[in-house]
C-alpha cells in the first residue's frame, strides 16, 4: 500500500537493523558451530584440531550434562508451575474491587524490576540465612528447626528466588488479559445462568489461554538461561545440584577454558531453546495477521 518512492526509502531505513542483527546472529553462531567440532582449549593455544563429534559425545556422556539437563527442567518446570498458578490467582484477586488497588499492584509487580544479582543476594543472606535470616527467625517463632535453605534444598531455594522474580510478570500479563475480557460477554454468561465457577472455567480461562501460553513460552526462554541467581548464591553447588545447562557451559568455557566442549554445549542449548521458540513465534505470528 505505498508507492515505489516510499518503498525504496523503506528499504534503506531497514538495512542497518537487519544487517546488524544478521551479523550478530550469524557470526558467533557459526563460530560456535565450528568450535564445537574442534579440540580447542584456551589453556593450550596452538593445539586445535578437528575432532568431529567428539565434543558432543563427551558432552552427552558427561554425568554433569544429565544432571544439568534435569536441573534445568526442574528449574523451568518448578518456576512455571508457581508463577502460572500464582499469577492467575493473583490476577483474579487484583481484578476485584480493592481499596488502594493501584498501590497493591505496584507492590506485586515490584520484584520484576529488581536486578537478578540483588534479589539473589538478598534472598540468600537476609532471608534464607540459616542463623540470622528472616526465615530462620520465623521458623523458630513457630517452633520449627530452621532450614539451611541453600545447603539442604539448594535447587528448591533457587526455584523460589527465580519464581519470586517472575511471578509479577505472569500476574501483570494475565491481569492485562483479564481486563480485556468483554464485560458484555460476562453479563451475557451471567444472564445465561453461569455461576462463578462455570464463569471461570467456560468464559475466563479460555479467554486467558492465550496470555497464559505467551507467559509460559516467554518465561521458558528466559528461564532456560538463568545464570546470575546461581552464580551469586550456590555457584552451581553443592556438587552439581544447582548447575543448569547455562551454568555448565559457563564453567566449561570461562572457568575450564574448554572452548570446544562449551561450544558443543552451546549448540545443544540453542537447539533446546529453538524448540520452545518455534511455538512462541507461531503464536506471535498469528497475532500479527489479525
Amino acid at each position, binding site marked *: 500500500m505505498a508507492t515505489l518512492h516510499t518503498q525504496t*526509502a523503506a528499504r534503506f531505513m531497514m538495512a542497518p537493523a537487519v544487517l546488524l542483527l544478521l551479523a550478530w546472529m550469524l557470526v*558467533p553462531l557459526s563460530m560456535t558451530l565450528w568450535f564445537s567440532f574442534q579440540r580447542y582449549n584456551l589453556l593450550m593455544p596452538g593445539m586445535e584440531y578437528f575432532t568431529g563429534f567428539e565434543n558432543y559425545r563427551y558432552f552427552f556422556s558427561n554425568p554433569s550434562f544429565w544432571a544439568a539437563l534435569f536441573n534445568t527442567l526442574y528449574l523451568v518446570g518448578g518456576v512455571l508451575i508457581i508463577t502460572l498458578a500464582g499469577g492467575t490467582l493473583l490476577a483474579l484477586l487484583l481484578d476485584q474491587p480493592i481499596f488502594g488497588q493501584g498501590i497493591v499492584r505496584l*507492590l506485586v509487580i515490584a520484584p520484576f524490576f529488581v536486578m*537478578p544479582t540483588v534479589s539473589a*543476594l538478598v534472598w540468600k543472606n537476609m532471608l534464607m540465612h540459616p542463623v540470622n535470616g528472616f526465615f530462620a527467625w520465623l521458623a523458630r517463632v513457630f517452633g520449627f528447626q530452621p532450614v539451611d535453605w541453600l545447603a539442604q534444598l539448594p535447587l528448591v531455594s533457587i526455584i523460589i528466588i527465580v519464581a*519470586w522474580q517472575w511471578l509479577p510478570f505472569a500476574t501483570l500479563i494475565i491481569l492485562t*488479559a483479564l481486563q480485556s475480557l468483554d464485560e458484555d460477554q460476562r453479563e451475557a454468561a451471567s444472564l445465561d445462568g453461569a455461576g462463578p465457577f462455570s464463569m471461570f472455567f467456560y468464559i475466563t480461562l479460555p479467554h486467558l489461554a492465550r496470555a497464559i501460553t505467551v507467559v509460559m513460552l516467554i518465561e521458558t526462554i528466559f528461564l532456560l538461561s538463568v545464570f546470575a541467581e546461581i552464580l551469586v548464591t550456590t555457584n552451581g553447588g553443592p556438587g552439581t545440584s544447582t548447575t543448569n545447562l547455562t551454568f555448565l557451559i559457563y564453567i566449561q568455557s570461562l572457568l575450564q577454558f574448554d572452548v570446544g566442549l562449551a561450544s558443543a554445549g552451546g549448540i545443544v542449548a540453542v537447539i533446546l531453546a529453538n524448540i520452545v521458540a518455534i511455538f512462541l513465534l507461531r503464536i*506471535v505470528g498469528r497475532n500479527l495477521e489479525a
Partner: protein
Amino acid sequence: MARAVSTRRKVAVSIIAWAIGLIIFFPILWTFLTSFKTEGTAIAVPPKFLFFDWTLENYFTVQERSDYFRHFSNSIISAVGSTIVGLIIAVPAAWAMAFSPTKRTKDVLMWMLSTKMLPAVGVLVPIYLLFRDFRLLDTHIGLIIVLTMINLPIIVWMLFTYFKEIPNDILEAARMDGAGLREEILYVLTPMAVPGIASTLLLNIILAWNEAFWTLNLTTTAAAPLTAFIASYSSPEGLFWAKLSAASTLAIAPILIMGWFSQKQLVRGLTFGAVK
C-alpha cells in the same frame, strides 16, 4: 442492603490482597529497612522492624567507596547508551515496516524476534573471544554493543506495534497536504509517536540495567555496572548486610520507580504485542 454486602466483600478482598502484596514486596521492603540499620542490628535475632536507631551511615560508606559511583555511572552509560543507539537504529526500521510493509515484512519481524530467543550461552564463547581480540572486554563500548544487539529486536517490535497504531490515513493526509518525507516524519509521525518512543526507551533502560549474563561475563572492573558490583558482595562482603542493603537499594530504586511508571508498556513490550 446489597451495597452493604458488597462493601463487606470489598473489605475482605482488600485485606487478602494487601496481605499478599506485602508478602511479595517484603524482600524489597526488608532490604530498604536494613539499609538504615547498623551492621549489628542488621543481623540481630529477633529482627528489628521499625524501632531501631535509624542511620544513614551505610549510604555514606557506600558513597565513600568511590567504586560504587563508578559502577553506578557504568550502569547509566551502558543502559542509556545502548538504548539510544538501539533507538537510532530501530526507529527508521520500525517506520519502514509499519508504513511501507511488503510481503516479507512479517518474516523479517519474526526473524528479528527469533534472534532474541537465541540463548546467550550459545554464543558466549565466540563473543568472549571476539571481544578479547578486539580489546572490547571490560569496556563501555563493548557493553553498549552487546546490550544494543540483544535488545534491538524488542525495541524494533515495540516501536512497530506503536507505529502500527498510527493510522496510515494521517500520514497520507500529510502527503496530500504537501509534506515531503522529511516533514511527514518530523511534524506528523514523531509528535504522534512520542508516547510510544518514550515507553520503549523506558522499558529498554530497565532491561539493559538489569541484564546480568553479559555484564557479569564481559566486564571485570573498569566497565562493570551495578549488577557486577552487587555480585561482588556474594563473597565474604556479603556478611555486611546493612551495606549490601544500602548498595542494593541504590541500585534498584531508580529502576523500580521507572518500572512502576511503565507497567502498561512492559506488558506490550515483553509479549511482543501478543497481549495488550
